[in-house]
């Protein structure tokens, strides 16, 4: 016989957690949820319980000392997942306060065993484990007693075929705690405060038998419970004919400069100084899509898209052809933005995405996420283009005439195409020029073209052939023979 046991994986009902665990929660596993007070352990436990418990798969929730059950019920019912109708049907709360107060772990264990035998639950929660441990401290030989308790509890639950969660808070990671050895899964929850932002993060420190995602992953608690922001899987694959069709930029003349438009599934970086018309070009890009029946999503971090000047876009937002991703949370992470974007993209089956602007985006992120901005941005871009959407990102570019830079983040390499806008001084006037710097696999124009902005948007003009040194910001008139502007 070579057939191995198949471990069923339960879907936890917590957005992102299944991915984090490496494909769901192994059935009959013995898990520990640890973390400081207030980091959401009890909420996580309840969310999992209400998602999984059915009359055929009932849950027992043991409350030990710690939080009084009355209060726990009072606050937990505020979450949308809390279903009063499930209580005493698929979910049963049992208070072990008396047994724990007596300080005898054997009594606690006996009572748990008795209730498990009576109700035959498929899911068991013990909240909080800390109080079980504290209760033993008085005895002196707490460590041994705890270890025995853990092993017996682990054995009991596995043989009763119950997926078990212990909720505890006192643990330090370096502790050689017996709980860690016995547990099949270790979910560690943290909250860190940096300046005025608090970031909640979760780490799967151990999950036997399956590849959980390593590292810290931020999560948020809302009225619907926890939502974990798992990094988007970087899938740099593109559909076969993606590059063959091109998306119009919506600006007359620009498509020709780009060898027919922006190849679909490409990412474009639009860099330029303040006031150069980046948002207008981005709006034209979205409008061109809408005119072609393509839905879009805009992530706006500077101006509020609902107060958009472009009436067509404002209408498209109203009638749901253009999705808006906006967040002003002080602890925003790139993963969360990606999550928000992908939800909108799927909802609308969007073809075009605009991020306006990367500079605003970086400012909007929580302080602790800024260090990894480039890495996360690269993941974001690859994931978006991996979804098959065509992406336009704007980037504020400080006008420096001594060097030619396209983005303050060194992000230029990660995009497939770059358009740069600059100011130049000609005849005591500030004029604008743009150039297509890069379009991967395309014979794009190398011209530096003047453009103007009027009520109809961006109007691309001619090259300033009579001048040279434009990128230096102070062009000089070309000596005779260098003929004036061509038409």
């Amino acid at each position, binding site marked *: 016989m070579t057939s191995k046991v198949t471990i069923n994986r339960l879907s936890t009902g917590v957005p992102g957690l299944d991915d984090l665990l490496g494909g769901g929660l192994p059935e009959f596993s013995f898990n520990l949820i640890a973390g400081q007070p207030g980091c959401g352990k009890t909420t996580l436990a309840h969310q999992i319980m209400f998602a999984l418990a059915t009359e055929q798969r009932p849950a027992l929730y043991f409350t030990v000392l710690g939080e009084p059950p009355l209060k726990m019920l009072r606050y937990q019912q505020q979450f949308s997942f809390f279903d009063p109708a499930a209580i*005493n049907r698929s979910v049963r709360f049992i208070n072990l306060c008396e047994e724990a107060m007596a300080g005898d772990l054997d009594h606690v264990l006996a009572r748990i065993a008795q209730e498990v035998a009576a109700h035959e639950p498929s899911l068991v929660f013990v909240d909080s484990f800390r109080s079980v441990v504290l209760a033993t401290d008085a005895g002196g030989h707490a460590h041994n007693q705890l270890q025995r308790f853990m092993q017996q509890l682990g054995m009991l639950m596995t043989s009763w075929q119950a997926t078990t969660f212990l909720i505890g808070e006192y643990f330090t990671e370096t502790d050689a705690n017996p709980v860690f050895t016995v547990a099949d899964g270790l979910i560690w929850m943290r909250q860190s405060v940096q300046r005025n932002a608090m970031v909640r993060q979760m780490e799967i420190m151990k999950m036997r038998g399956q590849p959980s995602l390593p590292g810290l992953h931020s999560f948020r608690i809302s009225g619907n419970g926890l939502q974990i922001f798992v990094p988007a899987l970087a899938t740099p694959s593109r559909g076969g004919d993606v590059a063959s069709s091109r998306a119009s930029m919506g600006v007359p003349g620009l498509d020709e400069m780009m060898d027919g438009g922006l190849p679909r599934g490409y990412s474009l970086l639009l860099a330029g100084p303040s006031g150069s018309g980046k948002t207008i070009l981005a709006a034209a890009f979205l409008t061109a899509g809408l005119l072609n029946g393509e839905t879009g999503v805009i992530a706006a971090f500077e101006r509020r898209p609902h107060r958009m000047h472009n009436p067509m876009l404002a209408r498209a937002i109203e009638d749901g052809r253009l999705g808006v991703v906006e967040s002003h949370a002080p602890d925003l992470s790139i993963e969360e933005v990606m999550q928000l974007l992908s939800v909108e993209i799927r909802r609308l089956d969007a073809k075009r995405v605009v991020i306006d602007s990367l500079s605003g985006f970086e400012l909007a992120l929580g302080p602790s996420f800024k260090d990894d901005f480039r890495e996360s941005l690269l993941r974001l871009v690859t994931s978006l283009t991996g979804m098959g959407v065509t992406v336009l990102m704007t980037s504020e570019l400080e006008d420096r005439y001594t060097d030619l830079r396209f983005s303050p983040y060194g992000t230029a390499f990660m995009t497939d195409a770059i358009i740069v806008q600059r100011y130049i001084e000609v005849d005591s006037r500030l004029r604008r020029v743009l150039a297509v710097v890069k379009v991967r696999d395309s014979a794009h124009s190398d011209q530096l073209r003047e453009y103007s902005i009027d009520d109809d948007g961006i109007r691309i003009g001619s090259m300033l052939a009579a001048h040279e040194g434009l990128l230096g910001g102070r062009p000089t008139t070309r000596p005779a023979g260098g003929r004036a502007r061509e038409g």
Partner: protein
Amino acid sequence: MNSQESNRFTAALTQRMAEDANSRQIADAIGAMWADIEGALQPVLGRRGVAALFKRTLHLTATRHPWLAALRAGGADSTVDLVELTELFAQQSPAAVAEAGCALFTLFRDLLTTLIGDRLSERLLQAAWSISSRAAPAQDPTP
């Protein structure tokens, strides 16, 4: 709490009592009903949790039925002594017992509802109702 709910308490209580019941019988019915409620809530809220709620209820009820104040003694940990409770009730007139009993349960239910909401209170107390309804079958009103 809506009137339907308080009726339910009264109904459950009257179900346990014979018509023309004397104070002792009503007191026993109140005691039995409280035991059912305790039985339904204690596993979830713990013995002390339920005791704390009941003490608060007694305190509130005693403002209108001062004779109940005699029961208020006892430490934080002590639970309600059912014998003492029924004894005290049995000493009052049947009308006073019935009224105080109803007030007690109504206030208790109100308190629970304030803390954990109507739906959850209802859900948790359902076990107590089902025991109550088993105790004596509902009778059709006499024509």
